[in-house]
């Protein structure tokens, strides 16, 4: 049974939310919860086109009414035509509706500058965690001794870059302890918002090939690239462009999801709903479609919001002594480092907590802000971090930064 180290934080947050509901007095009116990457919970609006199409698929009478734009109705009609019995309530084929799988494959080919994608290699699942879990089931031999290992990233220091030397070191450390079969990378990074360069990715691919590791590329944040000089390249593309023999031999599974990026549809999982969300994500309205102006406005708004949030977080945190924050190029989170005074670390020890958890508990109690302690993401020993979601409305971000600043200044004073 896996125990979450910070259940105490989650429990206290729920308690406080309940106390606030019951109008108990606190120095804040509501908790700002940036723990998970959950934009809608934070107040970001869903994309209208997506929701309109989904609504029409759920209640097909809307297809014939004038309530919804024409392209919405046409898209819903097409999608319903691909569902058995014309209903999203029937069972889907194991790998997903063939037509949608085809369109996803086309999206991938286009994204990757023409590198071909085969629909037979695409599987749709209720959320990326499910798919990842199942691939791991296939890779892991539960009877084996020593146990199967998967190389997993912990955020690095130097600009969060992935250094191949570190991969070698990790692999060496496994000798005798476990048998590594796979290498998991996440790009853009979670929690550290680094976007890998082509050079880095080529090194990773060569490493995976040399050591015969199955490459698991988690690319769910591929839509979230806000760094001006950053460009998202998929592992598939880089691998394909490296040509044979690597492109024919390296085993690669890449993951994408409707939970992240503009869609932010974390709760929409399962069955046709998932398929429809993926279809809309990979085949959005185009210029000329009636829904395009609104769609483009809404996605632009989200992009602007992210760029703004990233800038503000960087500015504010780096102006606070005790915080250092690297520039975020992509992904949905900020992962600033805390430089805690020794007295605070001592206090945390007395309370039998990791120092970053201690910081987060205090932040929650006194300022009503919920963020994740960095210890869960496994950074280097002796370093402390917090992680929080940056996919929020600008005023929420501002409010959070304001509360965090006041709290932090006081905290540093208290433990000086």
């Amino acid at each position, binding site marked *: *049974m*896996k125990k*979450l180290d910070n259940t105490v934080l989650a429990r206290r947050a729920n308690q406080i939310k309940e106390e606030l509901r019951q109008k108990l007095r606190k120095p804040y009116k509501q908790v700002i919860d940036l723990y998970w990457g*959950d934009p*809608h*919970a934070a*107040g*970001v609006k*869903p994309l209208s086109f997506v*929701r*309109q199409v*989904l*609504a*029409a698929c*759920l*209640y097909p*009478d*809307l297809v014939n*009414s004038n*309530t919804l734009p024409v392209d919405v109705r046409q898209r819903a009609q097409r999608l319903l035509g691909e*569902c*058995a*019995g*014309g*209903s*999203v*309530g*029937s*069972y*889907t*084929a*194991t790998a997903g509706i063939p037509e949608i799988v085809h369109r996803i494959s086309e999206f991938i080919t286009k994204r990757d500058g023409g590198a071909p994608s085969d629909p037979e290699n695409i599987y749709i699942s*209720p*959320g990326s*965690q499910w798919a990842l879990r199942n691939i791991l*089931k*296939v*890779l*892991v*031999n*539960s*009877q*084996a001794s020593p146990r*199967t290992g998967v190389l997993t990233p912990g955020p690095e220091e130097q600009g969060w870059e992935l250094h191949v030397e570190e991969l070698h070191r990790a692999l060496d450390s496994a000798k005798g302890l476990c*048998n590594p*079969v*796979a290498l998991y990378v996440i790009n853009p990074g979670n929690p550290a918002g680094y976007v890998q360069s082509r050079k880095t990715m080529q090194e990773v691919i060569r490493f995976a090939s040399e050591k*015969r590791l*199955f490459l698991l590329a988690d690319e769910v944040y591929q839509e979230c690239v806000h760094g001006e000089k950053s460009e998202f390249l998929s592992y598939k593309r880089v691998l394909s462009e490296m040509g044979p023999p690597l492109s024919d031999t390296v*085993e690669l599974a890449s993951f994408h999801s409707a939970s992240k990026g503009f*869609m932010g*549809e*974390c*709760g*929409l*999982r*399962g*069955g*046709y*709903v998932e398929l429809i969300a993926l279809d809309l994500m990979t085949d959005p309205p185009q210029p000329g479609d009636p829904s395009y102006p609104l769609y483009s406005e809404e996605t632009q708004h989200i992009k602007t919001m992210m760029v703004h949030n990233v800038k503000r977080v960087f500015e504010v945190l780096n102006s606070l002594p005790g915080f250092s924050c690297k520039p975020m190029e992509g992904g949905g989170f900020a992962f600033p480092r805390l430089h805690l005074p020794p007295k605070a670390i001592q206090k945390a020890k007395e309370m039998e907590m990791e120092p970053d958890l201690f910081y987060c508990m205090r932040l929650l109690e006194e300022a009503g802000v919920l963020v994740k302690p960095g210890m869960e993401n496994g950074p280097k020993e002796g370093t402390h971090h917090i992680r929080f979601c940056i996919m929020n409305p600008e005023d929420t971000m501002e409010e959070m930064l304001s509360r965090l600043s006041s709290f932090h200044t006081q905290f540093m004073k208290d433990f000086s």
Partner: protein
Amino acid sequence: MSSLQEGDLDLRGTRAPSRLQAARGTEESAQGAEKPFQEVMDVSTGDPHRAGMKPVSFVRQVLAACVYPKLLDEKSLPLDARQRANTLLGVCSGRSVGSYCATAYGIPYVCKSVTEFIMRRDGGVSSNPEDIVISSGSTKTLLIVLHLMASGEGETPTGVLTPMPCPHTLPTLLNMAGLTLVPYQLLEDQGWAVELDELHRALRTTRGHCSPRAIYISNPGNPTGHVQDRKSIEEVIRFAATEGLVLLADEVYQDSVYGQGTESLSYKRVLFEMGKEYSKKVELVSFHSLSSACMGECGLRGAYMEAVNLDPVVMKYLRDAQAPSSPPVLPQLALEVMVNPPTPEDPSYKTYSQEILHSMTTLSQNAQRACEFLNDLSGIKCQPARGGVFLFPRLHLPPQMVEEAKMLGVEADVLYCQRLLEEEGVRLGAGCENGQVDPNFHIR
């Protein structure tokens, strides 16, 4: 060499014609390949919408408004649907179905609605929201419990008493969870009834080779259509109590009891009406889902279980089993509507009750007609069904066919189904998937 060769692969080949083959049949036919049919009819799974049944309007109207809240002001949707959507959006984070569900076990408001439904159904027997866990489909929900049973130490593997025939997905699930299937035969000649002696016999077979911890039963029966009376349910409960087995009651078709004079009783209700000696002791987990006959929302993936008398530590584990993930939101809202439908004073009641009546009538008439028709054919014998969405007739196949199947390396009922698919474009399920072995060939 591929890393995949290192892994545990349980490659169980699908024996019956796959959905892919069925789809290919339709495709080939559409492309003008010479076939005596235009389109494949797939009735092998319990999938009403695939077969052409319509969803419940109220459910879809509420879901549409939840997904696209501008519809809350849309006059063409009934007022009560819009009000319900508004209420349900209120229990979603950020008033959006796109946000994560706040708990790993289900939206508390939905859990509460489920308990209210259970109490109404069971004539007042109490139900506690803390005993409810919601997940994405009954397969997932059942797996959570099955995985739990396979955990822990022991020399012999955990066994689950399983009815033969059983739902066709169950043998795979048990295998996935690392559990041993301990078969108990249902009595075909008595309409697939459960027999106490047979339960005892099955239990005796486990001695020395597995450790029985649970008994699974589906009521109404999948695929048999048998509905247990109170006496039968009590027998099973007493058996579980005496032998210290956890009772897993799959009741997804509880809304489709159509047999004349047949009463629909839940295991929970019967248990509690047996008095404290049983009601405080027997560990019972009951399952229900959106795949029910009248809802038919198999693709929406939503189900719940109610677990009573489990150790609090175990219950906590069940509630945390999906952490750090959480069940999807939209199906939970559909579940809420399923357990809390329009009442007579509501504007949508008329349409709602008509649609339910239509579903039930269709089921009942189909069951009767199909059973009569099949019994008129030589070589097929069908027990009458009283509930559920399947019929499970027995095939009396000519010896040459059985021989041919043996030579081709398939079960005879699989061969029958393959031929039927190729020649008539009808896809049925082969009885061997439900655990029925040679020479008892069946189709589903």
